[in-house]
């Protein structure tokens, strides 16, 4: 077994949870690998990590790994995770969501987690479709594309997940693709190190639903598309809006300092204590 595979295997729930549900060629396994490599490199023990997921193909990820794991309801993973983090601030809480999970049914939790700046790391698997339920269009399905609920074309416009996170107040926003696996490792690592609400949006392919309905070819073809259409943040800075149209900008979009919710919370507690002692 290759070293890199051995490393991944160290963290999997081999005896219990395999075979997994992902289709052959799915990008989710690459994201799982990147997550494990990042956690391993940062030297966390398995018990220090909590993986919280919503529902979807992406939501299955925590099932396969030997951390503290919680498979929650569709769209609500961030709310569950906020509770865990506030009760046990010493744990590193990572939230796994699909684009439907995070942007449709859970869209509200997403913007509020970012605004509140709770110390969580969210990894969003953006495959532009509801994978698990059979390829209905999601809030990230681009205008004009097809889905099982848009047999001719989607007439709605898509959310840009990372840009939404920036606007809503996330302190770390990174975007990668499953083709650029090394970049993904480093984005997840940076997000985990960051105190406050950080997200990594991962562009991945669902060749079985989205690819098939839109004639985008095999998993390999879709990964080649990622390769050919991604440009780095640095490169994008030099391009005009027209030149950037249709491109995926990858890398660190935002890395900034803002007060973290838990710190603010502790501060207000101290203040309240002082004023109680003084009898107001």
């Amino acid at each position, binding site marked *: 077994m290759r070293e890199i595979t051995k490393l991944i295997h160290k963290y999997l729930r081999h005896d219990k949870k395999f075979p997994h549900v992902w289709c052959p060629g799915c990008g989710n396994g690459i994201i799982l690998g990147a997550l494990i490599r990042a956690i391993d490199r940062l030297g966390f023990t398995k018990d220090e990590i909590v993986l919280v997921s919503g529902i979807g193909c992406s939501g299955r990820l925590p099932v396969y790994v030997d951390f503290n794991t919680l498979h929650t309801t*569709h769209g609500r993973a961030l709310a569950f995770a906020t509770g865990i983090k506030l009760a046990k601030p010493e744990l590193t809480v990572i939230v796994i969501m699909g684009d439907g999970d995070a942007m449709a049914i859970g869209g509200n939790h997403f913007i509020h987690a970012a605004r509140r700046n709770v110390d969580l790391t969210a990894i969003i698997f953006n495959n532009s479709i509801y994978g698990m339920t059979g390829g*209905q269009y999601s809030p990230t399905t681009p205008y004009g594309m097809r889905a099982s609920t848009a047999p001719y074309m989607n007439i709605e416009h898509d959310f840009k997940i990372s840009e939404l996170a920036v606007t809503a107040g996330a302190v770390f926003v990174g975007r990668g693709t499953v083709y650029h696996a090394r970049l993904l490792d480093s984005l997840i690592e940076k997000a985990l190190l960051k105190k406050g609400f950080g997200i990594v949006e991962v562009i991945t392919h669902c060749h079985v639903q989205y690819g098939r309905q839109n004639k985008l070819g095999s998993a390999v073809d879709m990964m080649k598309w990622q390769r050919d259409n991604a440009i780095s943040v640095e490169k994008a800075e030099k391009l005009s809006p027209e030149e950037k149209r249709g491109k995926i900008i990858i890398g660190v979009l935002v890395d900034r300092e803002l007060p973290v919710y838990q710190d603010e919370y502790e501060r207000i507690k101290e203040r309240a204590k002082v004023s109680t002692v003084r009898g107001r």
Partner: protein
Amino acid sequence: MRKVLTGNQAVAYGVFLSRAEVISAYPITPQTTIMENLAELWADGVLEAKFLRVESEHSAMASIIGASMVGARTFTATSSQGLALMHEMLHWAAGARLPIVMVNVNRALGAPWNIWSDQTDSLSQRDTGWIQLYCENNQEVLDTIIQAYMIAETVSIPVMVVLDAFFLSHTSEVVEIPEGGEVEKFLPPYRPRYRLDVNDPHSFNLMVSPDYYQEFRYKIQMAMEEAKVVAEEVDGRFAKVFSRGYGLVEDYLCDEAELILVTTGTVTSTSRQVISQLRQKGQRVGLLKIKMFRPFPVQEVRAHLKGVQKVAVIDRNISFGCGGIFAQEIKAALCDQGERPQVFSFVTGLGGRDITPSVISEVIEYTRRNDRPEKEVIWVGMRG
């Protein structure tokens, strides 16, 4: 026209024939294909409805509440977690007296996750003010949707049509699809008594003080009582036109029965087989299928169970701390009757576990053997 349809396709045909004007839904297994079938009919231009694909079930119900308030005929469908998420809006739709029709495909609730058949999702919405109709086969599904619009629009109460996950939703059966404008004649276009209309302005659903609120609730209760009569009438007229009727309850081989088995949904079909075999062996057993759960057909249940010694109720659902929900309702319906049967409550088939003929035989055998149940709730088909 006869066609082989899954339960979910039968739903789509029912909605199409009923000429729903606004449809809104969010995908969830095992409901999803209802929405996909409708999306296809819509995209092909066959279904002339406005079709919305929203961001959650809560929004699905909210959006058709809006559409219903301006006088459109509306539809949505969901299951399990989705229905639970709609809960707030279910109360709202009923309180606002909107004749919305929705389908719930019965599926187990989490935690833990399970996508298979279980009635606890719809039954736990029993106090929301919705009429609930349970179906046994795909023909009944199609027919019930058409009837549901008629009932809802007559009494101004929303109707939930319920079918079992997979056993109906994904199983194909031969279904007779009404043709030649028959449904159009049977179910005229929706003409609301009250609606949002700029030419005749009204305010809807404002704050109501304690001086008035109770009367609003009383009127819903009265409409529910009326719904039983209306549903019978609608079913009778439907039977005249289409030669198929269902009743609020249906008895099967109940003549001179000493023991009656009570079921809902697909368990009924399996039970028909078991009961008819036992009859052939000379056992005096019968079957009562309950189609209408809200309003609960108290009179019909009393009439059919009168003079029977024992009643065995199969519940594919559980109200924790109490027991099977249909059994509770039946006990409540019988409790003030002078002479009343002994009711046995059986819980089985949760989360999609099969209720096989042998499970049903076991239920009947237990009821025959014992004068009274040894426990309030008897769990059948447990893992050893």
